[in-house]
């Protein structure tokens, strides 16, 4: 294990002070399940590890008119057991339940999952299709970013050195909408997604026309990406089997995968196609439209 100092601020002010230390490379620790391993392997070398779980705001989990508030320190277990998440944000609940094992989910949260900015982060596509915003805080104040602008590259997010993630706000889902996330892994659990797809559709209850479709992909580009060509296939139409197939084909346009230990470029593209179809089909099933 690399050497570092430990800090556990009890308030945001205290945290900002630590972040402002010019001589220090501070990493926030929430669940720690990515960070501690990365430090262990020498992939990150912080001089201070700052446990944010003692800051009251960080543990926030609430649902109000603004939508769902997920504090950066809330664990996956807390999140998917929160009734409004189970009810209104199925895709988010599904993806939070896929992050590692039970032991990992008891520590790791969505905040850490996105800050780590792995292309494979399971919760990122779900947040994207749900139009989430991230709330970033630092000594200079708070700012809000659309989640899609948060990911800059593998392991890189849009936060400055002296900023931390406060939380995520997910707007209330539109009426008559459904979302699902599926990933493909070789085993049944404990793997990193070879490819992952979240889909969300909003259907006009009367005409059955798809008003909005949002599709986002994991593990097939340096960051999570929207599959806009696929979305365009669906919007303004009554979704049927043929359109789902076409959306699957078009989703590949957004995928720029690499070949690595987890899968080849070609295979990942095939998976994007299949998972897009399957998530869309599940959305329609949830809406009772099939």
């Amino acid at each position, binding site marked *: 294990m690399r050497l570092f100092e430990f800090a556990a601020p009890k308030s945001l002010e205290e945290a900002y002070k630590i972040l402002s230390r010019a001589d220090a490379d501070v990493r926030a620790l929430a669940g720690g399940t990515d960070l501690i391993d990365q430090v262990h392997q020498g992939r990150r070398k912080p001089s201070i590890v700052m446990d944010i779980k003692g800051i009251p705001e960080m543990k926030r989990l609430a649902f109000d008119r603004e939508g769902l508030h997920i504090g950066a320190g809330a664990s996956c277990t807390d999140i998917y057991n929160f009734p409004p998440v189970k009810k209104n944000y199925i895709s988010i609940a599904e993806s939070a339940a896929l992050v590692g094992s039970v*032991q990992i989910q008891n520590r790791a949260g969505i905040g850490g999952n996105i800050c780590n900015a792995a292309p494979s982060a399971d919760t990122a596509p779900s947040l994207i299709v749900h139009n989430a915003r991230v709330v970033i805080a630092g000594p200079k104040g708070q700012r809000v970013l659309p989640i899609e602008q948060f990911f800059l590259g593998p392991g890189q997010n849009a936060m400055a050195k002296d900023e931390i993630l406060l939380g995520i706000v997910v707007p209330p889902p539109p009426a008559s909408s459904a979302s699902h996330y599926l990933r493909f892994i070789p085993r049944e659990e*404990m793997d990193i997604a070879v490819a992952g797809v979240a889909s969300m559709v909003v259907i006009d209850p009367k005409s059955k026309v798809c008003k909005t479709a949002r599709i986002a992909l994991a593990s097939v580009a340096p960051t999570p990406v929207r599959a806009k060509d696929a979305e365009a296939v669906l919007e303004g139409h009554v979704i049927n089997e043929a359109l789902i197939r076409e959306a699957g084909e078009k989703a590949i346009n957004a995928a720029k995968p690499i070949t690595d230990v987890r899968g080849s470029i070609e295979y990942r593209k095939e998976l994007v196609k299949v998972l897009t179809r399957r998530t869309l089909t599940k959305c329609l099933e949830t809406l009772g439209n099939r």
Partner: protein
Amino acid sequence: MAKIPLVFKVNGEQQEILVQPYQTLLSALRDELRLTGTKEGCSNGNCGACTVIVNGRTADSCLVLAAEANGAEVTTVEGLSQNGQLHPVQKAFMKYGALQCGFCTPGFLLSAKYLLDSNPNPTEHEIRLAIAGNLCRCTGYDKIVRAIQAVAQAEV
């Protein structure tokens, strides 16, 4: 780098020790408290051999800093039996042959206890999901799943 004080409860007993800021909870338990029942198999949360219960929830103690456990209540395999009585999952693992080499066993016992505390009557799939973060290379999981089922059905 100065050591920092860690005050926490382990298996019901108050402990006050000094730990390195970078030391993991696993290392604090094993190397400082000499509670070596908790095992280290991979150091990155993939095998579950170091599973302990922290404030009522299981965690891979290799991915928790000792300092994070300040004020926490921690249960390790050494704390599973109470008043000289084995915990039902311990009895079941013995009776149903749910262990061979025994290295992964402490982690499995804690995952099983955690499952049964919140879901006393799990399905086979729920059991398998609950222990998916614990790797076993000897048993093929069959007898582990059956032992947990036996506890649920009070057949221990």
